[in-house]
């Protein structure tokens, strides 16, 4: 050990290890772990080791969950669900509160255990992970208490299967378990095979607070265990992890009727405008991509910096990078810890090799002994470079430049992902514009990687769908029951015979695409409702999606008030022309549709966002944004009211739609096309493609330009094959598919917030504010 006088010369920091003896005692005492099922730990089965990635040391043996184990856990969860779901919200709140308190009391133990098992620096598990876990359970104790008043008519989904990743093991558990329990669901959770230990410690806490047996079940294991859970009889699967695995899960649940939320990968832009506080932005990189070894799904890994400040920014970035301390995760002065596993380290290094082989220059990023990689970034990198496209999931950013704000937005959006973004500018006008333009579920203005239980988190595109946190997150664990009906399965397509003679002049119906009547690409028709109906195909779908995409900016630019005026005018014209629907739709359907136009005109400027109480000093705005182009598959029944029950909320929110009318009774929708054309609905906002429903729907699901699909054809026995096909196709494109149950489409239960919510996805925009440093006093929103 150096002498004090020597240290006074070198001014080194010296070692500052966190004490891990309590955790090691616990691990020794516990020995081999079984699963936690029905309130008890099972006897260990075949086990595998969970390791400390910084040393490779085995920490504990945990059980490889079998399909039988999973089934046992699901049965336990099913048994517990009735009682748990029926329990007054206040009682559930007490349990969640007890969990929050107990975690708080064991915060140091859990932080140390997390750092040992995961390799993240103790500073992060202590100051970020565990406090957020506690916050999450407190927040959801509140939702449990308030669920009956805040979500009237809603109930739990049932049993939820939850699969979580290894990068924030306990925090991801909290994000999954807390809302599920608050809403009255029970869960079977599978932690990642690399990091099961804090979940097992959490199981002890559940037992300690007397949580009813079976409400939380934890089954450890690898991907096979996860696959068993996905195929088990659960009501929902919630997954956080890689896009590749998420896609497989979406494929596996297609056609099963299980709900699904996916929080997947990202390659999030980190945009530094020329008027940014560059030092703040550099620190944002530290918090954005050099945090948690870069093993962060929302890491701001694509740095885009304005050319005019790029040189200075890079100089500052490099100087800051050199100050980061790579080392023992339990040392309190460590900034960057160990990569989770040698497999992951190799994966990162391979991407870096390919990136440099493709011409990028790597600064820093040197591999160390064991599972360590120094922080770094890739410069001189082209958009098509693998380092720019692939999620590296390591402490390596990319650095490139832009010239103007529109170019910044284009580059930011030039990715298959859409999870998060970070924007740096001292101009409110510039920053909020960028926040609006960037396609992502979370936008951090002048900050990075801020999280809070009240702020919904989740993505779009290949980053998945669904939200965790806040009201949005709760709604993903709740359902509002409806009086479900059975929608008739469409009749087989009857090929059109040579056209029959008719009395007067022919009435020719065509597809409605881009505001114009179009002949179908295939030049064929089918017979329905005594008419020749255009037989659309996938090229018509392609054209319709293109038409819808090109009108989006105009339609959204009208704003809620402008769209409301269009919807009122549509109602007026429908009333004028109700006679034209005679024979195609009942008067009740026409009346219901006119009223529904008013209903959604009213909502067009009222389905708002909210400023949520995330952290003091932070404006955290959660706003619903339209998906973009939506594919709508109308029910067979109620050819006008059912069709418009889908179209109206979608366009009210600013989407443009490609709608497939009732296959058997398409004339109402085709007649509607003429009303739309004379009602100031811009061409392309509503596109109507008739033909074989299931084939057209599958074509929509296989189009990357479609951002959401609604399928109202029902899910019951004999009905679901077409839907399953759509869901399988959507598993590849990762388009969310919403399946509103068939119901009386003229009724009030066929409209409302549920539809508006499905017609949008939330974006959480964080904006820390403060003109003066703390202590000088600032107001709170």
């Amino acid at each position: 050990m150096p002498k004090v006088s020597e240290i006074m010369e070198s001014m080194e920091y010296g070692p500052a290890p966190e004490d891990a003896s309590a955790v090691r005692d616990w691990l020794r005492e516990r020995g081999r772990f079984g699963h936690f099922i029905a309130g008890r730990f099972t006897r260990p089965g075949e086990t595998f080791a969970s390791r400390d990635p910084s040393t490779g040391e085995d920490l504990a043996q945990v059980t490889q969950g079998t399909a039988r184990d999973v089934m046992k856990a699901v049965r336990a969860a099913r048994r517990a669900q009735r009682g748990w779901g029926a329990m007054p919200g206040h009682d559930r709140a007490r349990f969640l509160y007890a969990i929050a308190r107990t975690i708080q009391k064991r915060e140091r133990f859990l932080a140390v255990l997390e750092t040992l098992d995961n390799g993240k620096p103790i500073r992060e598990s202590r100051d970020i992970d565990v406090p957020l876990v506690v916050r999450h359970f407190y927040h959801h104790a509140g939702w449990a208490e308030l669920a009956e008043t805040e979500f009237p008519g809603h109930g739990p989904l049932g049993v939820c299967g939850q699969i979580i990743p290894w990068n924030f093991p306990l925090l991801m558990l909290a994000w999954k378990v807390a809302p599920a329990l608050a809403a009255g669901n029970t869960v079977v959770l599978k932690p990642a095979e690399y990091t099961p230990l804090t979940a097992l410690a959490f199981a002890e806490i559940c037992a300690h607070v007397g949580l009813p047996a079976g409400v939380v079940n934890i089954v450890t294991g690898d991907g096979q265990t996860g696959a068993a859970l996905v195929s088990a009889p659960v009501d929902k699967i919630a997954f956080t992890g890689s896009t590749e695995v998420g896609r497989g899960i979406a494929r596996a649940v297609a056609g099963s009727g299980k709900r699904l939320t996916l929080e997947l990968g990202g390659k999030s832009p980190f945009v530094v405008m020329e008027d940014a506080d560059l030092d703040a932005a550099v620190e944002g990189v530290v918090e954005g991509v050099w945090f948690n070894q870069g093993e962060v799904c929302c890491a701001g890994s694509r740095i885009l910096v304005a050319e005019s400040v790029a040189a200075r920014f890079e100089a500052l970035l490099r100087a800051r990078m050199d100050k980061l301390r790579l080392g023992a995760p339990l040392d309190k002065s460590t900034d960057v810890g160990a990569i989770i596993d040698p497999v992951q380290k190799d994966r990162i290094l391979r991407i870096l090799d390919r990136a440099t082989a493709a011409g990028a220059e790597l600064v820093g990023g040197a591999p160390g002994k064991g599972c360590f990689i120094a922080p770094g970034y890739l410069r001189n990198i082209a958009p098509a470079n693998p380092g720019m496209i692939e999620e590296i999931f390591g402490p390596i950013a990319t650095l490139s430049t832009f010239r103007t704000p529109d170019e910044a937005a284009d580059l930011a959006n030039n990715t298959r992902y859409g999870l998060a973004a970070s924007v740096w500018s001292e101009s409110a006008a510039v920053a909020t514009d960028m926040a609006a333009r960037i396609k992502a579920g979370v936008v951090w203005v002048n900050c990075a990687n801020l999280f809070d239980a009240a702020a919904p988190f989740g993505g779009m595109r290949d980053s998945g769908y669904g939200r965790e946190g806040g009201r949005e997150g709760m709604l993903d664990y709740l359902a509002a029951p409806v009086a479900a009906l059975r929608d008739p399965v469409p009749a087989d397509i009857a090929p059109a015979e040579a056209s029959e003679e008719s009395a007067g002049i022919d009435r020719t119906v065509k597809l409605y695409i881009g505001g114009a009547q179009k002949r179908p690409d295939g030049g064929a028709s089918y017979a329905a409702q005594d008419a020749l109906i255009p037989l659309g195909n996938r090229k018509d779908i392609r054209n319709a999606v293109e038409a819808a995409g090109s009108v989006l900016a105009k339609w959204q630019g009208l704003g809620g008030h402008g769209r409301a005026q269009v919807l009122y005018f549509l109602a007026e014209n429908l009333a004028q022309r109700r006679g034209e629907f005679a024979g195609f739709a009942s008067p009740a359907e026409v009346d219901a549709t006119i009223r529904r136009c008013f209903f959604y005109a009213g909502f067009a400027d009222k389905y708002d966002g909210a400023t949520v109480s995330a952290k003091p000093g932070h404006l955290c705005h959660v706003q619903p944004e339209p998906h973009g182009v939506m594919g709508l598959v109308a029910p067979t029944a109620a050819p006008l009211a059912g069709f418009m029950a889908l179209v109206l909320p979608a366009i009210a929110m600013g989407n443009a739609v490609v709608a497939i009318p009732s296959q058997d009774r398409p004339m109402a929708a085709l007649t509607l096309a003429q009303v739309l054309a004379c009602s100031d609905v811009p061409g392309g906002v509503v596109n109507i493609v008739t033909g074989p429903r299931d084939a057209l729907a599958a074509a929509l699901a296989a189009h990357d330009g479609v951002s959401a699909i609604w399928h109202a054809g029902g899910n019951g026995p004999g009905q679901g094959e077409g839907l399953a096909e759509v869901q399988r196709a959507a598993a590849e494109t990762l388009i969310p598919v919403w399946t509103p149950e068939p119901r009386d489409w003229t009724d009030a239960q066929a409209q409302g917030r549920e539809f508006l919510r499905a017609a949008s996805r939330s974006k959480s925009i964080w904006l820390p504010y403060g003109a003066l440093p703390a202590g000088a006093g600032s107001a709170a929103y």
Partner: protein
Amino acid sequence: MERRNPGTDFRLDWFEGIQVNTPAAERRAASLTARRSLKKEWQVAWLLNAVRCIDLTTLSGDDTPDRVARLCAKARQPVDAGQLAALGVDHLTVGAVCVYPTMVAAAKRALAGTAVPVASVATGFPAGLMPLDLRLAEIRYALDQGADEIDIVISRALVLRGEWAALYDEICDMREACGHARMKAILATGELKTLGHVAKASHVAMQAGADFIKTSTGKEPVNATLPVSLVMLRAIRDYRDRTGFAVGFKPAGGLKTARDALNWQVLMAEELGRDWLRPELFRIGASSLLGDIERQISHHVTGRYAAAHRLAAG
């Protein structure tokens, strides 16, 4: 001795576009001190280093020559000699003693035979609201009394009104009056309020030739804070990057505990580097801080916490 900052011509373009995001500065300041931990011998060494950097200060209306002499005795021997010996450190003084101009002579007498410099506040400390010629005359008076360093205060009004060139001119005059004595420019950040003002005033003071920039007089409602210090350090870094000259930093008035002393040193090391942990470039303006550091050192050496009455008064 390092080359002294000669100042530059007035260069508005070096700082007019500066952007400081306050919440980000606060986040950095908060996480920075949580990112580094000093234990055992390392903690003691860093605390002793803080002692080396203290400008031991008395700036009270009731100061007397004897009171100043007592403070100087503490400055010569800030930590118990026996404890220092136990730590293997043979000689330690504070960085300087800081007093009012009329107390400089007493301090010089009391510190005769040591290398501890005497710093004098001047220029109408603490408000600075006196005619410029009187403020300059006060500098010359303090120098006549033997002051080695001068802590000047800037005109806050010129900052608040954005009269940067006038501020530059004033500080240049002061620097000229200081002659060979090192000049520390007190920005009184608690009265400038915004971090943007702090950053710009820092640049002007350095351009005008300040050897140190200093946060506070100790008399403002808010004195040295980590976010304010962070902004000033970044200005020092930018100035060094442009000119090659290293300007020192002196936080004052906000550092009371051993923990504070460690936090500020971590800030210096992380933002500017270890050169800025030496008294040539880092001073801490404090009076009560030393007592808390002594207590920590005493605990390290003896294993028990010392009551204040067991430590030599300053």
